């Protein structure tokens, strides 16, 4: 694909005309100058699109690793102490059966990989980078070098987390929340040794990367919008990215500080999180005077807003995709923007709902319950507006649309199940059971991951100039949708029994002994779900090279990225985009084509409306 023919403009666009386009089929470098050029073009690139794709490829690979870790976890839950296929070779001495400390490490690293190396970087890093300049009509980010660094700071994190599997004692095994004193005392658990130190370092590098990105996104969105692009003409994707960047900028420093405090507890002998005279595994902690709950406050002060960092961008992308394939303006644009802002604002005062039974003052629990109940409100408003967007539309069932609709359908479940946990008395029973596991998988997998797939199918033509295969896309959607509900919906009733999370084997309890068959069913669904992703991987790679050529605007969408060539060259636009209207003018009455792009001249709409009357 050295040239891309663009049917909508009738011109032939060569990647070389626009400097470096997207790295597909680059020629092998010969001389050292070519090597340098290759490195600066494809490796240490400062082009936001290349950086976005670097984030995309890296996070998709980690997505695979995180998924396989989940399968190993599910295997142990369904058939505890049985011989593990493939992985069993690692523990040949134990007859192929998994040790409990290995299981503990698996779920810790599954969550860590999925949250810090997949969801956060794929939303902000991959989609944020690729889409922000294109959708606001800028030629690149405000700080291209910072942007490059934000990707390359992920690599030390990849190395820290990756290497931790191979150090003595294995990777971190204190849960992704790393509650002390389990995580601060080397004697407490095999994974609390070098693995935990590397975990904390990896976390810090992810934090640095996110911070560099968030500063860049805020500056770019505020300062580099195309002429005519007012804040209230921004597509929802950009609003969501903007507010996410604000959340990151304000919440992350707390986590970074807390991470360093835990590192210094571990390595310098301080006692921020260790109480006086604590004896772990028959070893007296040398320092004390701290408090384990302090960590929980600091950790959740970041990690609760982080939950919204992990869903708001997906909400933005889904809002845009729904309008395109419903051929209808977004229902309630301003309420949608205000509710994202509301979620972000309230997101800073709800962290205590993770700590209702932690020993925190129960009176404080009441205030956190009220704020947590209230954060359901903007989410409800968003859901009603998505339904309003579909109502009266002209719905096209493309793969991207199916994933976007399923985001709405699944987010309803994830949102409603949250209310159970927000209610403090009910939370006493379902806290740390599979009910919460169901809840956050509905938000993060059935919500965010489905939103990410919607985004990939939708923007793939802009990224690579080619469309993905729709038939196999729909097969991928159907199977993922069915298997994900088989895996996660059943977790609700498992949680209703009180089935606790993070137990290597719970069937020796009288209360839970009859739950193995249900768990086996869920594991089969999980295996199906991961296997289905082979279809996606093949479709993705095949379409990059052999998919039908897309042209500039294959979906007849309105936003600015669709006025640029596919894929856009260096500098993005071959003309200066000037914005005349909001992003959602679909099915304008009397208009010849059923959409008015943001760049269409102003008289187009006036003429359309005049002829309608």
């Amino acid at each position, binding site marked *: 694909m050295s040239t891309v023919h663009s049917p909508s403009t009738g011109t032939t666009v060569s990647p070389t005309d626009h400097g470096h386009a997207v790295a597909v089929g680059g020629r092998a470098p010969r001389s050292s100058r070519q090597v340098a050029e290759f490195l600066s073009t494809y490796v240490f690139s400062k082009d936001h699109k290349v950086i976005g794709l670097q984030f995309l490829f890296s996070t998709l690979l980690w997505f695979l690793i995180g998924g396989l870790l989940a399968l190993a976890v599910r295997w142990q839950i369904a058939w505890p102490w049985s011989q593990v296929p493939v992985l069993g070779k690692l523990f040949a001495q134990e007859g192929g059966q998994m040790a409990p400390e290995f299981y503990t490490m698996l779920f810790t690293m599954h969550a860590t990989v999925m949250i810090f190396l997949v969801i956060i970087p794929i939303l902000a890093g991959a989609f944020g980078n690729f889409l922000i300049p294109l959708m606001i009509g800028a030629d690149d980010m405000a700080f291209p070098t910072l942007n490059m660094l934000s990707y390359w700071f992920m690599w030390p994190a990849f190395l820290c987390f990756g290497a931790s599997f191979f150090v003595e004692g294995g990777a971190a095994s204190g849960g992704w929340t790393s509650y002390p004193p389990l995580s601060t005392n080397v004697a407490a658990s095999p994974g609390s040794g070098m693995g935990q130190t590397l975990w904390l370092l990896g976390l810090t590098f992810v934090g640095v990367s996110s911070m560099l990105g968030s500063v860049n996104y805020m500056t770019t969105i505020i300062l580099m919008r195309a002429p005519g692009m007012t804040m209230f003409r921004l597509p929802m994707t950009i609003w969501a990215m903007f507010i996410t960047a604000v959340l990151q900028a304000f919440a992350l420093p707390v986590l970074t500080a807390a991470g360093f405090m835990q590192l210094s507890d571990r390595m310098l002998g301080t006692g921020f999180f260790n109480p006086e005279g604590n004896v772990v595994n028959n070893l007296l902690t040398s320092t004390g005077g701290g408090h384990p709950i302090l960590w929980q406050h600091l950790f959740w002060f970041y990690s609760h807003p982080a939950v919204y960092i992990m869903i708001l961008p997906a909400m933005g992308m889904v809002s845009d995709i729904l309008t395109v394939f419903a051929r209808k303006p977004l229902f309630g644009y301003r309420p949608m923007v205000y509710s994202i802002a509301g979620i972000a604002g309230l997101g800073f005062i709800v962290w205590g709902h993770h700590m209702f039974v932690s020993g925190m003052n129960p009176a404080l*629990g009441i205030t956190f319950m009220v704020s947590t109940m209230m954060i359901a409100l903007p989410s409800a408003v968003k859901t009603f507006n998505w339904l309003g967007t579909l109502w009266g539309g002209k719905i096209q069932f493309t793969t991207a649309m199916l994933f976007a609709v399923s985001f709405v359908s699944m987010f309803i479940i994830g949102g409603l199940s949250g209310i159970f946990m927000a209610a403090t008395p009910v939370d006493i029973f379902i806290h740390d059971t599979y009910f919460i596991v169901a809840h956050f998988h509905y938000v993060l997998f059935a919500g965010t991951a489905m939103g990410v797939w919607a985004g990939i199918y939708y923007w793939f033509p802009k990224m690579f100039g080619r469309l993905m295969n729709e038939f196999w896309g729909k097969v991928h959607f159907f199977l993922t949708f069915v298997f994900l509900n088989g895996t996660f919906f059943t977790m609700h009733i498992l949680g*209703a029994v009180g089935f606790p999370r993070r137990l290597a084997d719970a069937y020796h309890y009288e209360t839970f002994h009859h739950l193995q068959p249900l768990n086996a069913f869920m594991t089969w669904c999980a295996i199906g779900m991961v296997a289905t992703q082979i279809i996606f991987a093949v479709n993705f790679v095949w379409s990059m090279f052999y998919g039908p050529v897309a042209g500039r605007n294959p979906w007849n969408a309105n936003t600015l990225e669709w006025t640029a060539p596919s894929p856009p060259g260096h500098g993005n636009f071959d003309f200066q985009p000037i914005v005349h209207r909001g992003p959602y003018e679909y099915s304008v009455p009397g208009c010849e084509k059923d959409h008015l792009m943001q760049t269409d001249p102003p008289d187009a709409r006036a003429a359309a409306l005049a002829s309608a009357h």
Partner: protein
Amino acid sequence: MGNRLAGIFWSLLFLAVPVLGVATFVVGPLYDIWLPKDVSVHGRSIDSLFYFILVLTGVVFVVTEVLLFWFLWKYDAARPNPVAAFIHGSHTLEVVWTIIPAATLLFLSIYQMNTWADVKMRRPRIPPTVEVVARQFEWRLRYPGRDGELGTPDDLFLVNDLHVPVDEEVLVQLKSMDVLHSFFLPNLRIKQDAVPGMKTPVWFKATEVGQYDIVCAELCGWGHYKMKGRITVDTREDYERWLEEIEARQEATQPEPVAEVAGQ
């Protein structure tokens, strides 16, 4: 444009979500995959709140999911002569669907407060029935003995085998020796983290004689899964008889408890 059959297929798939969703919650209890038997006074009010939220969210779930299905079904572009409405929103609707959920959610949180206060804030004014000290990976128990005071020479020590009297207020003093644990009694709807450096009071009133599980619900290391205890709810007479038995057994193995105290 497009195929009407495809639209029918995909809308029905989304209709399957509320149908199978509700079915799961109906079939689960048939196979005993549901709230475990409740044997406490607090448990009754916690369960009724659970059912209240279940009904409320269940209705919202079914209504919104069916609407979603209906819109996909009805507004399929493959229907003849599709026309999309050119509507940017409705101020009235926004106000309605902001105020109604806001009022409902506020009511819901106020409605919870009394139960929460009963379970976690209105501590009974009685001396501790037993001290539970969590440790990797066991529950160490300490009964006050005849003098009714903890920390005296006649204290009784046990591991993982908790006995309490039925129909009486029980106050547990919860502590941890090493890392975080969580004292989880599924049948009594009790869960409380044990935090090293803290003494956390936990209270309940069991309503039925029997044996139930004690589960650790906060990750505490590799042996977390096996940190299992047992709570036996006895009648007053059985409870006293059991205490005497324990006392007798302890005296037999500890001939001179007084000397130990003198050495401290």
